[in-house]
């Protein structure tokens, strides 16, 4: 199973890791129901020490930056094959899930999406 972490996302995560001087830092992405298209992404920063060995999967960027992304089982089901990006726009900079193959449509603001039945 592959999740694509873009170089921009990896370098941003690395930046946060060194700023917080926390090598255990990871980005947790969760999917929960809500938003106008039924499912939404929730992003949070977590520690690899709080990762559950049964439920969670940790992805590490292959570029050696040490950037890590954590997903739980049900969220991974709906996120596999996606790309994790860090976008810098006038409205603000944020981590973003792009190109989710499970999503069939998404709402205007992009935080909420629908999946195939």
């Amino acid at each position, binding site marked *: 199973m592959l999740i694509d972490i873009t170089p921009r996302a990896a370098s941003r995560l690395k930046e946060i890791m060194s700023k917080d001087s926390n090598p255990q830092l990871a980005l947790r992405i969760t999917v929960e129901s809500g938003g*106008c298209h039924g499912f939404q992404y929730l992003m949070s920063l977590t520690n690899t020490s709080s990762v559950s060995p049964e439920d969670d999967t940790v992805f590490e960027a292959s570029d050696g930056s040490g950037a890590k992304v954590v997903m739980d089982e049900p969220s991974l089901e709906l996120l596999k094959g996606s790309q994790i990006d860090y976008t810098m726009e006038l409205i603000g900079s944020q981590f973003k899930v792009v190109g989710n193959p499970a999503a069939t449509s998404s709402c205007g603001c992009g935080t909420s999406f629908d999946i195939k039945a």
Partner: protein
Amino acid sequence: MSISPRTRPTIVRAFRSCRRLLSTSALPPAPPPRGYAHLTTRRLISLRGHDAPRFLQGLTTQNIPSVDSPSSHPRPQGLYSAFLNASGRVLYDVFIYPDSRLREQNDLGFLIDVDAREVQSLARHLKRYKLRAKVTVEVVDDGEAQVWQAWDDTSPVNFLPNADHVWTVCEDCRSEVMGTRLIASGDRKLDMDADLVDVGTYEVRRILRGVAEGQSEIIKDSALPLECNMDYMNGIDFRKGCYVGQELTIRTRHTGVVRKRILPVQLYGSGVAPEILEYRPSSSVVIPPKDTNINRSPGKGRSVGKWLGGIGNIGLALCRLENMTNIALNNRGIQQSPTDEFMLSWLTEEGREGGEVRTKAFVPDWLRTRISSQDTHGEGSPNG
């Protein structure tokens, strides 16, 4: 015809079987002024767990009372609501009741009252959104709990019976003319001081009042909530936060005009159009196939409505208000001419006879009042 040739055969087949049913059984009697019925057309789903209110809040058009809302607000006993798909079309029309049985167990939960034929499908829909939410979804066995409706047209006060095995009693919030909705335990017959009638008689009463219910009338993935009058039937909270299908619903409310609505119609063969909507159990009018277009007669042109289904000489149709009623939209004045007549005609298909019948649409008083009160007050509040 707006139905694609691919879907048509199924519709025709479905209709044929229902016609057979009608020809062997007589039409249901007209509703008594004071009656009650077990709604075998409805089933219940139990949704319980700590996250249940928040979970439902994100999926339905109605504002679900949260656990921490101030207790000074009386909790509603039942809410009318709908589940929509992401593009704003109705999936299921439902009632949502707080599950009063769970109160003693210090647990949270709801009973969801849905079209009996869609109960498994709604349960799957709920499970699809479950993810990590702490909720359990279970279809309630018919022997465990049942949906009933009671009404008393002889009294202005709603009929509120109280019995041991009735768990929930609530006013049917769709319209004051509908009566009372009840959830009763399924192990006993409900005994009330009124006439017990079959569900068919409830359906007749409901159609006469122009209230669509279930997915044979509120077509799944196609019907729009405002066209089904859910805005006037207290089914949509326009101030609540995000839920599935909100985008189109709120935009239509604030920037659009609802040109088509579901209305009760009467079918008649020949002669003059009926003055008042009246159900005749002895009617021999042939019910048109579902989705038959309604056209102005005589004359061609764009259809002005679509037949949804009915019993005997009455039914429900999605009607263009400006053409089929004297309701004025957008301050354009009344467009309808009182001499207009409307015709449903259908062609021979798969060995079935074609036919035609005239129809007239009626705007129920409760609906007319609500439409005109919204006009005078202008559009409600800014969206949330």
